[in-house]
């Protein structure tokens, strides 16, 4: 049975894959380079990684769980020293696809995403073995229920 995090993860992937701007850069269908938590070793750049940051249940009296709130980090990653170009294109498309939705009944298999909106933008630099990487995206507040 899917839990609330599964519902939100499915929602994120489905929304991102529905964007032509995103699939043009990271591929489409089962080959889309959209990964949860960490990309496989040697994955082609650019790609998108998303992670659950702060899940918390919304509970009622007794053993009733109403929904789960979470913050999700959704970031595009490039091997580059620039935050512009494809990285900005992907970050903008991520925001377009995930920001400002509410009342999203039945958008994900096994549950509903009640709302999704951007909490704050995100960018970070990383240098690994002398190679520069840039990340850009946003942190989104979401709430989901299982059905």
């Amino acid at each position, binding site marked *: 049975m899917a839990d609330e995090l599964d519902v939100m993860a499915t929602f994120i992937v489905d929304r991102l894959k529905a964007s032509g701007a995103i699939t043009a850069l990271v591929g489409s269908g089962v080959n889309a380079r959209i990964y949860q*938590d*960490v*990309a496989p*070793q040697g994955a082609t750049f650019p790609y998108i*990684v998303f*992670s659950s*940051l*702060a899940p*918390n249940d919304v509970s009622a009296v007794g053993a009733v769980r109403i929904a789960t*709130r979470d*913050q999700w*980090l959704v*970031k595009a*990653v490039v091997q580059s020293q620039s935050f512009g170009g494809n990285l900005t294109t992907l970050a903008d498309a991520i925001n377009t696809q995930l920001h400002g939705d509410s009342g999203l009944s039945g958008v994900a298999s096994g549950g509903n995403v009640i709302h999704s909106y951007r909490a704050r933008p*995100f960018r*970070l630099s*990383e240098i*690994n073995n002398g190679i520069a*990487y840039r*990340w850009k995206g946003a*942190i989104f507040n979401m709430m989901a229920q299982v059905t």
Partner: protein
Amino acid sequence: MASSGIDIKFNHLAQIAAKLHNDAIAETAKAAHALEAQEKQKVIQDDAVDTGFMVNSIQAQQVDKFNWIVGNGAEYSPHVNYGTIHQPARNFVEYSVAIIGPQYIAAMNRLVEKSR
């Protein structure tokens, strides 16, 4: 002609206001230290400890009466918190704020209720 009124025998409003102010300062300090403890606990829970430098450097520092900063001294801490190209995020900041934040707001609400 009938008339009515209220005689004020005691005026403790100044003391109540002062106590509320001081209690709010205490609750803010308590929340900052609780956030520090929660972040440390989450880092250890996620097994994100190597030398212990980052987890030991997580500290709550007071800026003024109602402003505290909970930070740490490890320059790599954003990469632990948000992940790297090889490692998943082991988030301890947002996770801890999501737990302690509502507790702080509830404590402040209780102070207001008590003063009524």
